[in-house]
């Protein structure tokens, strides 16, 4: 507790929800203000830049559809990551898991002779399994061989990127693509329908929202969810309670990777209709989803909404590229800045400021109130 003039500043152990939302919103706003400097440095009036972004995103029906379309992979990846993060398992590999899903879906779409809706169903199933398998590997490495999951998941992103590159340059290179590195186009039965008048592949949206609800239920109501939370709070406590660490993180990573992979299925079946270069399929959704999950504080339902925010930033990136002729990389700068301010402001949530009652004095119990 500390007295600043007439105010009393004290720390609290768990911040109330209002403080979390308020401080987070403030951090995002400040990050966008700082980003204004970049527009200014580029010779673009920040005011005009944000006006153009607003017109091109939230200001029109097309813009809103675009935000939604960009949010779809972020919802699935973000929801999946909340599972891993609740277990304190640092899954930085959503990017690779997403691509694993895209690869598996492409394999089914191009080579499995399945009729009608069964084809799409098989693509989602194969994608989920592939992403889940790709996600389990770092869990095994961590539990059995003490390999830091940050590194293994990151490395596996690069491995999957080069596998995709290999496939589109080599074995799966399309016969009709005239030397370009794409796979063949998917048959019509392997394409997801759009909401009329937009490019929003709605089945992915339905799956995303359903996944958020399902993960919320898993975390709150099931034994696995309970064990994930215990492992996340203290591995020692989990071991003492007889919880099998390997089993818990393997499940968390199977589901986390599987959900990220569904995002990849959605991208190839709903947007590109073929396998193409990894930067086109993903453009960093898997990394951005880390911010989505972090901003949502590990809540899968909140992740749906934070995914929309970053869908907005991706849509804004398109507007900036077309209307202001600035490179798309600006989304990376935005994302980095938002993340900086989010974690930088974290401490603020733990402070409570109130007017000091007259005559109240700090009694000097240091330590006890300083936690």
């Amino acid at each position: 507790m500390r007295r600043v003039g007439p105010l009393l500043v004290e720390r609290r152990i768990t911040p109330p929800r209002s403080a979390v939302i308020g401080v987070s919103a403030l951090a995002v706003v400040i990050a966008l203000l700082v980003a204004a400097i970049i527009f200014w440095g580029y010779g673009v009036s920040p005011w005009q830049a944000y006006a153009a972004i607003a017109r091109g995103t939230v200001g029109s029906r097309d813009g809103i559809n675009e935000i939604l379309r960009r949010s779809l992979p972020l919802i699935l990846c973000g929801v999946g990551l909340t599972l891993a993060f609740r277990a304190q398992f640092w899954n930085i590999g959503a990017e690779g898991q997403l691509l694993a899903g895209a690869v598996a879906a492409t394999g089914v779409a191009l080579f499995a002779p399945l009729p009608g809706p069964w084809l799409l169903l098989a693509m989602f199933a194969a994608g989920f399994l592939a992403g889940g398998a790709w996600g389990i590997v770092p869990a095994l490495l961590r539990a059995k061989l003490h390999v830091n999951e940050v590194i293994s998941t990151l490395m596996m992103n690069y491995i999957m990127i080069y596998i995709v590159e290999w496939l589109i340059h080599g074995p799966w290179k399309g016969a009709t693509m005239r030397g370009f590195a794409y796979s063949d186009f998917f048959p019509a039965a392997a394409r997801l329908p759009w909401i009329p008048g937009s490019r929003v592949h709605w089945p992915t949206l339905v799956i995303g929202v359903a996944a958020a609800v399902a993960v919320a239920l898993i975390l709150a109501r099931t034994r696995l969810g309970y064990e994930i939370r215990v492992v996340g709070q203290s591995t020692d406590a989990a071991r003492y309670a007889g919880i099998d660490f390997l089993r818990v993180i393997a499940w968390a990573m199977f589901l986390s990777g599987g959900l990220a992979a569904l995002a990849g299925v959605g991208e190839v079946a709903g947007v590109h209709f073929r396998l193409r270069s990894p930067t086109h399929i993903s453009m960093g959704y898997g990394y951005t989803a880390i911010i989505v999950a972090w901003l949502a504080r590990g809540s899968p339902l909140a992740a749906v909404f934070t995914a929309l925010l970053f869908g907005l930033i991706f849509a804004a990136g398109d507007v900036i590229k077309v209307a202001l002729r600035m490179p798309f990389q600006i989304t990376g700068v935005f994302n980095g800045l938002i993340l900086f301010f989010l974690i930088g402001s974290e401490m603020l949530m733990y402070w409570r400021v109130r007017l000091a009652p007259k005559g109240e004095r700090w009694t000097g119990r240091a330590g006890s109130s300083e936690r």
Partner: protein
Amino acid sequence: MDWQSWLIGTVSRALAFGTPLLWGTLGEIYTERAGVVNLGVEGMMILGAFSAFAVAQTTGHPGLGVLIAAVVGGAAAVLHAFLTVTLRANQYVSGLALSLFGLGLAGLLGRGWEGIPLRQPLPNVTIPGLSRIPVLGPMLFQGQSVLTYAGLFLAVVLWVLLYRTRWGISVRSVGESPSTADALGVNVFLVRYLCVGFGGLLAGVAGGFLSVAYRPAWTEGMTAGMGWIVIALTIFAAWDPLQAVWGAFLFGGLYHLSFRLQEFVAPELLKLMPYAFAILVLALTGLGKARRRWGAPGALGLPYTRGER
């Protein structure tokens, strides 16, 4: 091609490609020895690469470019230190933010500089005398960058500093047990700031090497994941500057081989080799030395608050 010239070429190029890995790893070792993980190496390297190229191209002095790259990398790292040491933010998230931000900013600023060859690259040196030793001469002492030798020298200096001086004890104690170090009168926050900043300095040089010496040009994303390999190498080297040397050159050799073997294997599959190998190596070290946690600083990744246990 006979095996001798093949070997000479491979080792010589392994040294060149291993140089940025060595500089980056030495920096991350000091960062982590002080108890801070900085996952922003990729971002600091790419910012260093761009600023080195931009400065070298406009002034014509590649050395100045590398110097500025160091300053830029150091400044980026101090931002990480501010967030993680002063504000006690999560180190993983802060480092990731730094990488996202660095890659984005370098891509944004570098737009107009793409594809232009650097007018004055950092010159390579050939050591007189030593370079005439058969086999070993052309392998190790011909046409290498100054920064390769400087990196080797630095590794030795940093090893001595870490294990044989009072200063090094301070750094290590801050990483092992900050509260004990604090009680003994070591300024934990200062040491952490210095080590993180120093790590960024070296990562900046690593990036600068890529754009003004190794491949004297700027291309977007030219660090191509080397920053992440550096993080793996830090663990692989068991946080020891001398072990970092052979780790870095081993991976440098792998990178080189991934170009060299293209006539036999698809190039895309070769490019994933260093990343797969990094996982393999960490898995093998985990297999062997699991029980003594293999030298990781005790307080790695934990923010320090005075008066808290």
